[in-house]
């Protein structure tokens, strides 16, 4: 628990320098096997020494001495922020994202920039231009993505916590596969200023941690209105976690996964005196079909700046297959929009899904389902494009509905010699992020 470590640091039992040195040594020793980290912050030890001075003077911030790893699409001034792409291979960030400034102002220390699926396009961790990231919990299986390096870094004990971005499940999906807590906050509750966007109407920055309490600590530090991101606002919470009605939708997922989820729900309901009931969400099966046309268009639009003039290389000449697929697909839609056949239709479906969740939360306090409907595949396994997209079928719903969602570990499924972690996903109504975190604590 980070609160215990912070206490140790505050009481002088552990210095920031010792903490940072431990992680840097571990990264040096074990990263060649996992490939979770792309670039280490060479100044981390120096910065830790400065924080130690502040701690002694009792002037340190609330995260003093903790070390964190950042997904390589979040700008950190002076560090390489290449989105795991050849397009931006040597791009050095000229400024820091708001979330970074908030964490640094509380004296957390940046350890490294993480590997990821290129430009956040992917759900497996296989799409990086700098090699796949391995899953520290099952080395021959994918860690999930696109925040693959962030998740693997926390799971491999390379850091105290990590930051990722979640457009359709990119925090929750790898959290589920790596046995971690991954949180996608409400759209607009955390600033995206300084995030290299994948799909601006869906992107959200969030934490990956080992416990919900750690997640809460980081979320409460990075949340809040930011004048540099026009969609941000301070949300007022209107729920408490005393009497809870849980909605369980009927959704296709591997039977062993559903068993784990339902058993955990039963246990918690019994212990907390909460109730559960089936919930019908009519358009829930259209998540993927709604999500991808929107993403394709926004990827095409958002990548027009990568023309090789201001920085890097022209994207169409230097990116990988999945990024190119989204660019070309988005280009096709943007050309004539085919009388609203793709994008407008998808926006309509997004509105319908959002409304369905709004109505559902009038009756239910939270909705629970698996984070990912299947177990992660092995690296050499051939998998179709549609199957790959379907990894996100249950996570995209929260992005489309703009609501907060969290994945918490809820057990393991045995496949051959592998003991694969499974995530339980909880949704709450828009803006009720801290309520959701309170509920999630009971499921750990």
């Amino acid at each position, binding site marked *: 628990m980070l609160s215990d470590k912070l206490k140790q640091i505050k009481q002088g039992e552990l210095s920031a320098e010792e903490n940072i040195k431990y992680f840097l040594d571990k990264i040096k020793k074990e990263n060649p096997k996992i490939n979770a980290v792309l670039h280490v912050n060479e100044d981390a030890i120096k910065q830790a020494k400065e924080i130690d001075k502040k701690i002694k003077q009792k002037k340190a911030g609330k995260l003093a001495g903790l070390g964190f790893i950042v997904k390589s699409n979040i700008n950190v001034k002076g560090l390489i922020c290449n989105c795991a792409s050849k397009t931006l291979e040597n791009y*050095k960030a*000229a400024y820091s994202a708001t979330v970074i400034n908030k964490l640094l102002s509380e004296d957390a220390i940046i350890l490294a920039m993480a590997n990821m699926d290129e430009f956040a396009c992917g759900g497996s961790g296989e799409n990086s231009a700098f090699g796949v990231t391995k899953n520290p919990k099952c080395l021959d299986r994918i860690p999930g993505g696109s925040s693959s390096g962030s998740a693997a870094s926390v799971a491999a004990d390379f850091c105290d916590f990590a930051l990722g971005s979640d457009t359709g499940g990119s925090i929750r999906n790898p959290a589920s596969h790596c046995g971690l807590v991954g949180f996608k906050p409400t759209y607009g509750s955390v600033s995206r200023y300084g995030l290299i966007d994948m799909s601006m109407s869906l992107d959200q920055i969030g934490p990956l941690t080992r416990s919900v309490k750690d997640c809460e600590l980081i979320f409460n530090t990075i949340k809040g209105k930011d004048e540099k991101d026009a969609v941000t606002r301070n949300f007022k919470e209107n729920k408490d976690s005393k009497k809870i009605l849980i909605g369980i939708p009927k959704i296709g997922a591997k039977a062993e996964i559903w068993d784990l989820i339902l058993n955990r729900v039963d246990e918690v309901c019994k212990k907390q005196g909460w109730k559960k009931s089936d919930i019908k969400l009519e358009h829930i099966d*259209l998540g993927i079909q709604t999500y991808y046309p929107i993403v394709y268009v926004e990827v095409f639009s958002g990548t027009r700046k990568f023309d090789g*003039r201001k*920085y890097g290389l022209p994207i169409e000449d230097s990116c990988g297959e999945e990024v190119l697929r989204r660019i070309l*697909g988005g280009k096709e839609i943007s050309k004539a929009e085919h009388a609203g056949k793709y994008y407008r*239709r*998808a926006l*309509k479906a997004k509105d319908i899904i959002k409304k369905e969740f709004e109505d559902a939360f009038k009756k239910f306090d939270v909705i629970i389902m698996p984070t990912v409907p299947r177990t992660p595949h092995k690296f050499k396994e051939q998998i179709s494009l549609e199957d790959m997209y379907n990894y996100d079928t249950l996570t995209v719903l929260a992005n489309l509905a703009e609501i907060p969602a969290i994945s918490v570990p809820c057990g393991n499924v045995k496949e051959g010699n592998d003991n694969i972690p499974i995530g339980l996903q909880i949704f709450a109504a828009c803006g009720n992020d801290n309520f959701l975190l309170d509920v999630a604590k009971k499921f750990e």
Partner: protein
Amino acid sequence: MTNVDKIKVEKQAKEILDKFAKALQTVEKDKEDNESYVEREEFERVEKQGKTSEEGFKERILKNAPAHDDDFIIAEKGSWK
């Protein structure tokens, strides 16, 4: 990636988009088109002082540019020039 690969990727993208668009056909019936717009009383924005950028920002930005001449990023000349 070769041009042949690019064509293959483009075809794949089109195929999957068509499949998704077909699956979303039903929503056409479920939801009416409702274009929304905002009508403002004031049309002119008051220009403020603006913000000065952080020290060294321009230098850091220019360091990433493939080619620059003092404060200017050099882009390629169009074939019409």
